[in-house]
């Protein structure tokens, strides 16, 4: 035990011992939390971190004595301020929930009731528990709105959930949790669904609010860099078990377990990218594209990419980066502008392209789950392009498929599998093999790692780099993550609201002087470093004071 004051249990707000939770799938109960101990003092923040399936959200809800439908708490004790929540009746548990323990969900858009005004939902807890008058609760909510940096705090609550942006809604939900002055707040991935430039503001607001309110918090996330900014202590979870527990400083700077070390070490791949002067393989010339007649998504976009290199296209949701991929592949013919490939003009419409033009341009998608047909075996998925483009069949096709499986570092035994029998990372590897099978000259990668857990994503990036070295294929790599850009890019294009803000070699784009947007984007990416958030915020305050 690394922190003091544990042995006597004094001052412990939350003390979970030997927690076991089972989840039901296909009529079978499996243990998803396997004996977790957790201790939290008043006013402290404990970060729970782990990849999907680690059981972190389930533990967070269990701290409120709650189990989702399809889950059941089967063992252990959950002491909240000395009371075992599991021994309480439903009514007694309700007396604690929302008053002494509050919850902030991942998707605020779904967690607010669309039928009621925000303010009515935000002050519902204190009114239900009869701990405040309506006027007092409203006053407190308005004060919290102001503290959380919401616009027009007096009238903000009169709006309906769908009338408010995602970042604002997430803050409103934090306000909702804090109104009754709870002792403990459970934050369940509160910033995961937000864009990186919005995330930093919400994160800062949450951090200030918890500190000022003196509430303890469980902060659940899969992003170690985020949790390092807000937590006093961090617990690393995996497969429903604790891997390591320590202060934020210990976990980030002196991890003991191998798994934690690997988590800390992610995003540290770096390619010494340099744009070599070479006739470009792909040229995007003044492309303007729109959905329908009015909704223009890309404005006069021009970029190019030399063979064997990687162009990273960076931008937030709505910046038009995926639309750019649709234009290049011919799915969305542009309003004006042209796509050139190896000096030749590419027909704008998919239907007008020759088989050869289709072959040299392949694609990898964000969600490997939906990028391969769940009803096809790996043999068919990888074999089809071989058969389609090169007319391979029988033993030749089999041989080449096995070679490709080998190239993506998966064994031949996977050839008979259905996608449902593969992990997320393996599915993405199969997608890469399918693209590779066409022996393309350019692969468009549309956020291929953003749906994967960090360690798995790292593996995919390394594989892509290795394949590029072997086959000299070019990548057009779409991403919202600067760390990924550092890892794989030779050239970078920053997109903002459909316009190219910055384009050039990686060193050039990622070095000052910056334009405002690139500056904001670069500074918003959480670093694996304690105190990073404060650093950024104080620079910002100085900057705004200077203005």
């Amino acid at each position, binding site marked *: 035990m690394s922190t003091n004051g544990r042995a006597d249990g004094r001052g412990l707000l939350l003390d979970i011992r030997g927690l076991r939770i089972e989840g039901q799938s296909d009529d079978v109960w499996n243990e998803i939390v396997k004996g977790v101990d957790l201790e939290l003092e008043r006013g402290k923040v404990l970060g729970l971190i782990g990849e999907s399936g680690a059981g972190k959200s389930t533990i967070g809800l269990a701290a409120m004595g709650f189990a989702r439908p399809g889950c059941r708490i089967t063992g252990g004790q959950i002491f909240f301020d000395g009371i075992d929540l599991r021994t309480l009746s439903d*009514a007694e548990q309700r007396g604690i929930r929302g008053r002494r323990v509050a919850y902030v969900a991942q998707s605020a858009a779904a967690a607010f*009731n669309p*039928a009621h005004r925000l303010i009515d939902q935000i002050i519902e807890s204190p009114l*239900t528990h009869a701990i405040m008058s309506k006027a007092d609760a409203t006053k407190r909510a308005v004060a919290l709105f102001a503290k959380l940096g919401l616009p027009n705090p007096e009238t903000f609550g009169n709006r309906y959930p*769908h009338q408010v942006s995602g970042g604002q809604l997430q803050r409103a939900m934090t306000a909702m949790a804090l109104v009754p002055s709870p002792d403990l707040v459970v934050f369940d991935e509160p910033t995961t669904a937000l864009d990186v430039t919005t995330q930093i503001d919400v994160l800062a607001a949450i951090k200030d609010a918890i500190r000022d309110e003196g509430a303890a918090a469980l902060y659940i996330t899969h992003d170690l860099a985020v949790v390092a900014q807000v937590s006093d202590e961090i617990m690393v979870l995996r497969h429903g078990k604790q891997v390591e527990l320590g202060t934020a400083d210990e976990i980030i700077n002196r991890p003991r377990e191998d798994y934690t070390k690997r988590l800390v070490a992610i995003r540290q791949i770096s390619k010494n990218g340099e744009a070599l002067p070479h006739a470009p393989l792909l040229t995007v010339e003044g492309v303007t594209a729109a959905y329908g007649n009015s909704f223009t998504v890309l404005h006069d976009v021009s970029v190019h990419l030399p063979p064997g290199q990687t162009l990273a296209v960076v931008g937030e949701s709505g910046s038009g980066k995926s639309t750019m991929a649709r234009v290049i592949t011919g799915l969305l013919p542009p309003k004006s502008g042209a796509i050139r490939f190896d000096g030749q003009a590419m027909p704008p419409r998919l239907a007008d392209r020759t088989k050869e033009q289709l072959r040299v341009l392949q694609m990898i998608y964000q969600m490997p789950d939906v990028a391969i047909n769940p009803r096809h075996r790996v043999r068919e998925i990888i074999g089809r392009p071989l058969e389609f483009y090169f007319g391979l069949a029988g033993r030749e096709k089999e041989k080449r498929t096995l070679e490709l499986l080998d190239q993506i570092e998966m064994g031949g035994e996977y050839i008979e599998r259905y996608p449902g029998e593969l992990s997320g990372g393996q599915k993405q590897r199969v997608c890469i093999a399918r693209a590779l099978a066409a022996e393309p000259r350019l692969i468009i990668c549309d956020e291929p790692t953003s749906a994967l857990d960090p360690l798995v994503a790292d593996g995919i990036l390394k594989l892509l780099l290795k394949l590029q070295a072997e086959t000299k294929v070019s990548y057009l790599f779409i991403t919202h993550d600067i760390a990924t850009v550092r890892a794989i890019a030779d050239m970078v294009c920053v997109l903002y609201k459909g316009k190219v803000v910055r384009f050039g070699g990686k060193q050039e784009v990622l070095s000052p002087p910056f334009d405002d947007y690139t500056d904001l984007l670069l500074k918003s990416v959480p670093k694996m470093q304690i105190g990073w958030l404060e650093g950024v915020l104080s620079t910002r305050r100085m900057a705004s004071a200077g203005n």
Partner: protein
Amino acid sequence: MHPIIRTVVQRLALSLVTLFVVSIVIFSAVTLLPGDFAKAILGQAATPETVAAFQKEIGLDKPPVTRYVEWIQKVAVGDFGESFTSRDNYRRTVTDIIGPRLWNTLFLAVLTAIIAVPLALFLGILAALYRNGWFDRIVNALTLTTISFPEFFVAYMLMLFFAVKWHLLPSLSNVTPEMELGERLYRCLLPSLTLTLVIVAHMMRMTRAAIINLMASPFIEMARLKGIPPMKVILRHALPNAWAPIVNVIAFNLAYLIVGVVVVEVVFVYPGVGQLLVDAVTSRDIPVVQACALIFAATYILLNLIADIISIVTNPRILHPR
């Protein structure tokens, strides 16, 4: 214009267009008649002259558009023309034939709706709340069985027990216009009960599914995590969002009711539009068939329109635009 009004007006216009197209389709029925149709109606003894006269009488000599305009103009004021059974010495307009029967059918349908809708909603919500409990399982098996039964099976079973064996209710529902309300209700009870059984099963299953779907929403979980008591979770958080699905369920089943009415009326010899339609189809009395079909279709469209409008006006996203 407020988006609500705009959306409602759009739906209204869409329904009118649908009704218009449906009326064209129903009208075209006459044009689709096979060549030997007149012979089939007039019998084998018909001479070419009588056939020609008959075709002229139903207007087959005029261009279709003219005939449609004439027809729809009359229909708009409730005149559906004359029945094919109408003869020179015995004139029968379709409106005269349908009028009293329409009232009877409406009476039966409304009576059934009054019994069935509250019962189905109550049972459906109960089953959803005690999901996977014994009540839910029993009700699921029972309703699954009931919706599998043909209406006439349910009708004859009820008739066998309530009328023939126990002599509680009359087996035939031959109501007359002069009948007192009490007597009328007594005679309508068996057909109404039959329809209720069939409809409640459908409506209950759909209500249950809609509620379960709603209760899985994250905002319901949020309400629970705020410590809101279960009853208040349902009344304050689930119900305001449940109107649209529930109203759609009701409308769908009332629409189903107007079809079920046809078979049940025949079984109990109830003098309604359904029975009339079947008789008219058997005797190929096209004007009557057209009128009945148009009435059924219009009711169907109206029910869906009402459901649509209620869904719209209870949707907070449209009610409170950005």
